[in-house]
């Protein structure tokens, strides 16, 4: 099937691709921690800027990952909506001031403080998304398990994750085949039936899919054991690359960002940057 996987490794020649998987993983983790901790608009703006630059450098194009970006946008929107619905006055509490811009109905008013809070929340997500996507799109899947092992995670876990990733296209293909054959037996999965019927129908595809996946797992685990997987506490890696100068520079850079982030954020004893008082 020629259908591309939704999110997978995209081979290009770029500085980001040249970094080892371990470096990219450390970068991604440190970056996520940094953006999770802070609500400081100044720090977030800086990180956002860097994210965009890194994305440019990677030579990955927006349309390569447009589906995932779309999903992330929808998720972000929903998140904002629900935060507003459940606590429309949260920003007022945080920033200890209240500037009403518009009154909708009942408790729902739009305040400048709430909007500012939403802006910060959104920026946090936007900072992380490109870096997370780049980690997946620029890391050769072969190197994935090795990079997890590189930061001290057991190679068994690393290998299970990378095998799971690797079988996604296979399972997608199988799903496609099974669903075609089931449609030929009158099971309609297009939008014509009622939602409940459609849900019941999708079970008709999932059951065979699960059974055949279990079969696949048995074969793979036998094949792995027969070739000595799990014999030793450690293992070596055919594809692991040596850390280069750029790797160390990148790690030093992201740690600096993390430290600056912590210092700026907690300097005044508050995670939030407050321009209102």
């Amino acid at each position, binding site marked *: 099937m020629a259908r591309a996987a939704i999110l997978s490794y995209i081979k290009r020649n770029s500085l980001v691709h040249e970094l080892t998987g371990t470096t990219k993983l450390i970068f991604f983790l440190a970056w996520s921690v940094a953006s999770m901790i802070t609500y400081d608009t100044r720090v977030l703006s800086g990180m956002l800027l860097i994210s965009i630059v890194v994305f440019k450098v990677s030579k990955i194009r927006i349309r390569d990952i447009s589906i995932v970006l779309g999903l992330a946008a929808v998720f972000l929107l929903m998140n904002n909506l629900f935060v507003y619905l459940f606590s429309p006055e949260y920003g007022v509490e945080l920033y200890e001031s209240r500037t009403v811009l518009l009154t909708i109905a009942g408790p729902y008013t739009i305040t400048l403080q709430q909007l500012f809070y939403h802006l910060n929340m959104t920026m946090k997500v936007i900072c992380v998304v490109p870096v997370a996507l780049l980690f997946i799109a620029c890391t050769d899947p072969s190197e994935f398990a090795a990079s997890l092992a590189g930061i001290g995670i057991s190679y068994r876990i690393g290998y299970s994750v990378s095998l799971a990733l690797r079988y996604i296209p296979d399972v997608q293909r199988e799903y496609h085949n099974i669903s075609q054959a089931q*449609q030929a037996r*009158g099971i309609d999965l297009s939008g014509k039936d009622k939602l409940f019927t459609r849900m019941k129908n999708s079970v008709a595809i999932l059951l065979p899919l699960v059974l055949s996946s279990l079969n696949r797992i048995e074969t793979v685990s036998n094949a792995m*054991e*027969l*070739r000595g997987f799990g014999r030793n506490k450690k*293992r*070596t890696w*055919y594809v692991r690359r040596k850390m280069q100068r750029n790797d160390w520079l990148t790690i030093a850079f992201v740690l600096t960002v993390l430290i600056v982030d912590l210092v700026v954020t907690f300097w005044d004893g508050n995670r939030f940057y407050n321009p209102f008082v």
Partner: protein
Amino acid sequence: MASPVISFQDYGFQYMAQAEPTLRHINLDIYSGEKVLIAGTSGSGKSTIGNCINGLIPFAYPGKSTGKLLVDGKDAEQSSIFELSHTVGTVLQDTDGQFIGLTVGEDIAFAPENNCVPQDEMKQLVSRVAGLVDIDHHLEYAPHELSGGQKQRVSLAGVMVEDVKVLLFDEPLANLDPAAGRTTIELIDMVHERTGAAVLVIEHRLEDVLWRRMDRIVLMNEGGIVADMPVAKLLAGNLLLQHGIREPLYLTALRYAGVEIRETMHPEHVGSLVLGQEDKEKVRSWYHMLRTGIHSEQYGQELLRIENLKFGYTADKTTLQDVNFTIHKGEMVSVVGRNGAGKSTLAKLICGFEQPVSGSIYMDGRDLKGDTIKERAVRIGYVMQNPNQMISKPMIWDEVEMALLQSGMPKEERSRRVEETLKICGLYPFRNWPVSALSFGQKKRVTIASILVQRPQIIILDEPTAGQDYHHYTEIMDFLKELNGKGYTILMITHDMHLMLEYTRRAIVFSEGRMLADTTAAHVLNDPGLVEAANLKETSLYTLSLACGIDEPQVFTECFIGYEQKEVR
């Protein structure tokens, strides 16, 4: 004599979940450098023997063993699957499933990685072993970029990298087309020569394995060894037939002609066969007796017509083109060609899973263009290769009823149809059984029943007998033949040449997305040009007939098939 590298001594084994032992009183010695074939039907215990040697038993499949098994002089029970993997390298049946690495190089390196071999050393090792099986120019390739035969080379390299003393092949031919199967046997032979390891092949496709010399055959039945002897001796007797294994076709033909098979004839291979003048005369007179009886069959009116069909998954790559043929009512036709020739794509187009770029498909003279999958399904039934991919209800009755439920048919009508279909398929006594209680062959019947219940005019089957031993194969095919006799039109996609030859008169041949021929099944395999172009394999009947001085091998093959159908069944 040196001590054996594998030695079973009054060995028995019982799986934890089973009431009866699967292996009983096995006494078998395998010596270094030997090449041994283990044959037997499914359920005979042949795969269990393999799993005992490589340590999957008891490591992955626990159970109780009796007697003794020594691998390289050590008691297998005392050692681990890891220790055994240094001595025994196993190539599993499923070449896709055992491809662990993401590229060829990584996959070959998998075992050394687990042994903590340093990276530089590992790279050298991988390139040396890859060279041994001629895959060293593909180290960067991903599995989906390789052909079935190439994947097998990778699997082989992946176990040879350990420098093992025994190479174990578990049904290496199961999913391969005939030409790829032949290459595999040649590859195994080459590796045997280059490494000197003992080679154990577990397989029921005897004629294909014997393409290269084997030292002896171990024949299994119901958990015991019924024969352990040189190939020629076993072929000369009739133990194979008694135990459900198909003997090579040329030997069957000789027996039909009244020729006695003797060890001295070198019956291992059709090329090595030595026939006396008297034997040849017997074959010729048998042939002349039958030749007069050949008649052509008449078929009904046109049912399915395909015109100038063209298709590609992407705009710049054509998967199928210039396809033209007509299927008549009541016909049973094979669609043959190597893996990836476009056979399955054709089925998908007919069923409406994919839309052609150009060309048309007519059913009863009406263009199917624009009909949905569901609309076509009422007239065209499609049965997938693996029944486990189709069955989605736990109970047989529900599974067969499913398509009718969807169509909103009233209850009485529905029950009547399901009952009738179950009777046709011989499943009526099992109607309230769970599907899980059935054998593979019976499951296949259930999937066919679940399609038949919609009363399609034509049934398309994808590899109906893939991976089945002779017994189940015959069971499935006789059933299809019976359905055909009841007036169902059947189109079979297959790369099994025996199947095509035995059960269908007509065959449509594909190669690289083009239709090469539309002719009689016997003609396909007796036209060396066609065999070559479609990457098929001529049958041994072809060679036999020429050896006996019969210059119409095609007619000889037809006579043979006709005789089998009339006299033997």
